[in-house]
């Protein structure tokens, strides 16, 4: 059993494998994650909109021990990740990090959020620091 705590280090190895196969292989996998996440999120995001997204990511924040601030406004929401637990573990790793590890997050989130009818804007800041920002707008 790979402990659930170590999933992202396995994920990092999956990304390295796919990157060697080619860009399309990597992007197809992110879209597969996105389709899988639709089961948990799409209805919630469509029916509750930005409130539904806050509900989902508040749950993730607690479950995945994220140091993150979520801000709500009338027409948009903002997530500010101060310490991403996922990239932190990939960097704290005896295996080499996949250089574009962070890209999987917008890779699956953007298609899902767009499908729900909203407009996300990502700022990854740096792929070597475990922090980023994302704003999601109604229109």
């Amino acid at each position, binding site marked *: 059993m790979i402990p659930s705590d170590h*999933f992202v280090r396995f*994920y990092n*190895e999956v990304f390295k494998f796919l990157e060697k196969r080619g860009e399309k292989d990597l992007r197809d996998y992110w879209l597969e994650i996105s389709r899988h996440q639709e089961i948990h999120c799409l209805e919630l995001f469509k029916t509750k909109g930005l409130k539904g997204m806050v509900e989902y990511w508040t749950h993730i924040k607690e479950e995945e021990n994220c140091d993150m601030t979520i801000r709500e406004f009338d027409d948009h929401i903002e997530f500010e990740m101060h310490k991403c637990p996922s990239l932190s573990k990939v960097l704290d790793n005896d295996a080499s990090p996949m250089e574009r590890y962070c890209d999987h997050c917008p890779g699956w989130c953007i298609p899902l959020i767009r499908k729900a009818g909203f407009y996300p804007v990502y700022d990854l800041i740096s792929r070597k620091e475990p922090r980023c920002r994302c704003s999601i707008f109604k229109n």
Partner: protein
Amino acid sequence: MRYKETGQVHLDFHGAVNTTVEYIAGKYGADALHEIFFATGRDVYKDIREHLQKGDTSELLNYWKYFFDREKGDYEIKEENGKIVLHVRKCPAVEHVKKLGLKVSPEFCSQTTYVNKGITDGTPYEIETVKTGEYSCTQALRRRKS
């Protein structure tokens, strides 16, 4: 121990492993999946592997105990005929995938077999991993026959 996570345990990641296993095995074949698990064992668990190279099994045993306790697995570690055997009676990973309502991939448990092969690569030890039931397996650590 090299990785000793604390805080909440996010067991849903076992579901993500199952989904990934289905995707990689379905698109690239079981050998590709085994290659990824082997690399995970060899590189992510380099510290355990280096201890085994020196004949020190303590890091592997600590790792087994820490994470099976953390995920509330039903298991026992026993010394049997010169081997150290991990008996997993109820695997928390398989249990959680089923709890999520997912069909457990036929390749799901190959994570254990091939991560174990990677961890012991280039060491005087090998781990014989045998699935004994839907939720159970044995992992027997022993010195390789020379």
